[in-house]
């Protein structure tokens, strides 16, 4: 399997996810759209697995490879949210966001590259990146909800229920970025000699983490405004984007030892 075949798997998966998302609006039973979404996920994962085998290393090194996982985890997060809280629109949101990242990968294809530098050859590599991509997907879904909430404004029917869903997702996402960050710290101790060196990537990981902690603590106050909470979520997601790839364009990036996409 190589990137040349990606378009077939991606289009097939998008078709299945799109059908699942559309069926979620129809009176059809939940199981039907769930099955379509699952089918798309299986097809998409078949590509990831094939790429893993042909690269002879986990496909988690380059930006394109992490986008691949992100496109995969978005519908996972959407499906879990749909099954848990019955929001019909969530699957279409996550499908569209996933399609955006698939398009980026199609227009800007990765080069098939088997090289995995010694620093990345560690049992921590796969869990560290996969858990981060999973949390980014959950927090991406939450950001879509926040934007939806702010755009709909007063027309939101059950604000309390949306806030409950948002809180649940943020707790799960923050738990995962905490796990990803601390696994990274333990790995950094093994690979680089120190668990925390304020490398730009680490600094931005901490910034993102604090952003979501601010949301969680802000929500603890009974008198807090839903709107401000949603704005905090959007700002935190911007921080997350800087941490993921924006950091490469910052003046501080030259010093980072945390860059692996050549």
């Amino acid at each position, binding site marked *: 399997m190589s990137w040349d075949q990606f378009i077939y798997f991606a289009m097939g998966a998008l078709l299945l996810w799109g059908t699942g998302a559309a069926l979620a609006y129809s009176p059809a039973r939940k199981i039907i759209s769930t099955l379509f979404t699952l089918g798309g996920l299986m097809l998409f994962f078949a590509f990831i697995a094939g790429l893993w085998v042909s690269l002879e290393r986990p496909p988690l090194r380059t930006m394109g490879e992490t986008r691949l996982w992100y496109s995969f985890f978005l519908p996972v997060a959407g499906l879990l949210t749909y099954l848990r809280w019955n929001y019909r629109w969530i699957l279409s949101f996550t499908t569209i966001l996933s399609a955006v990242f698939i398009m980026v990968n199609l227009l800007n294809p990765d080069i098939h590259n088997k090289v995995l530098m010694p620093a990345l050859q560690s049992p921590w590599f796969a869990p560290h990146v996969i858990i981060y991509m999973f949390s980014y997907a959950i927090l991406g879904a939450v950001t879509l909800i926040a934007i939806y909430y702010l755009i709909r404004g007063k027309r939101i029917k059950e604000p309390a229920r949306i806030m409950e869903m948002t809180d649940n997702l943020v707790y*799960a996402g923050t738990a995962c970025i905490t796990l990803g960050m601390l696994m990274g710290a333990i790995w950094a101790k093994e690979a680089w*000699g120190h668990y925390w060196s304020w490398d730009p990537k680490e600094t931005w990981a901490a910034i993102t983490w604090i952003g979501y902690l601010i949301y969680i603590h802000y929500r603890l106050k009974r008198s807090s405004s839903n709107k401000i909470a949603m704005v905090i979520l959007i700002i935190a997601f911007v921080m997350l984007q800087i941490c993921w790839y924006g950091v490469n364009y910052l003046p501080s990036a030259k010093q980072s030892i945390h860059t692996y996409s050549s």
Partner: protein
Amino acid sequence: MKNSSRHIWEQPWGYREGILIAAGIGLSGLILQLFLGNIHPTLFAAPLNLIIGALFMTGLLAVYLLARKRPLGRWLTSVAATLPALALFLLLSIFLGVIPQFPSGSETALPDNLFTSLGWYRMTTSWPFVLICFYLLLILGLTTLRHTTRKQEWRDIGFYLNHLGLFIALLGGVLGSADMERLTMRVQEGQVEWRGTTATGALKELPLAIQLDSFLLEEYPPKLVVIEHESGRMLPTERPESYMFEGVGKTTDLAGYTVEILEYLPHAAIFSNDSITRVVPMLMEGATAALRVRVTPEGGAAPKEGWVSNGSYLYPHSLLRIDETRSLAMPLQEVKRYTSHVTLYTEEGHTRKSLIEVNHPVMMEEWMIYQYSYDDTMGKYSDTSVFELVRDPWLKVVYTGIFMLLAGALFLFFAGPKKSRS
């Protein structure tokens, strides 16, 4: 803020006081910074860090015991105090994440501008950053202590794991930062070394010695690229292509050419003068990888055949000229793995054989020994290995906090937020 009729500083305090106090701490830090410059790392070296730690813990307990029932004590453990402190820490962290940082201790001149006076080129040792850290630790410590007076439920396990874990990890990290020692050590094959070099270049004798028995470096298979002679740029310029050798007889498309692999010599010697290049197998130090290839341009031009090699310290690299402007070249092979087989000795006379490689450090006498580097001018024939030796007496404290936080994160994931009782 519902109680907007309340005057500022009138109890009960809210966000406004939180913002003012956080800003006040930041401002005090700024003034200290302008007058004193960055905090010297040795201020936190043993035994001063123990004293600071003890003073801080005493202060924390004193504030807790004296003020827990007063409005100030209650406010210090509230969201209204926490959020402005977190937001200010976030802001300073953003500066830290955007502005290039200079290692403290190094004597490189900092640029002569405002950022230098503000301490932003060495943010983590600047007064505002450290003061805000301690303010956050105070809030965190007080909040944790105050939580113990509540009626406890099973959910509180998560609270303690996260808050106490962060408190321990953060305090341990801040206080321990100056006690960490990092040295590098170069050892040649067959030699024994017991002195390390600090970042400033000073030599330090260690309670252990490393003997390098052998150093092994493994590379990925060679790659081929098409380059422009003049510039040396890889083609196509906007998205350079490369082909990693997969076996003799394989054919690939590379930057508009068809490349066929005819022969592969992993260990070759190259003799060339102006007219002829001779490539022969040679199994000894300094041998280079070589590929004999046939390159066919698109559009039926005559194919070119010849050897391509990336050279070694002994032999120059050799290109295959395709046409006037382009050549087929073999870049240096990428490193897959490098390993040092060592014998470690301690002062007490213990001996241990070990294998050290990247991601697999070895612990000996409080020192973690890392594979750091090698003599890259010699590539895979390097007979020198460079180790990094790290001693961090506070690591156990920080790891206690980190593992509590890991457990706390799992708790957060499965338990989720507290259900609102509205």
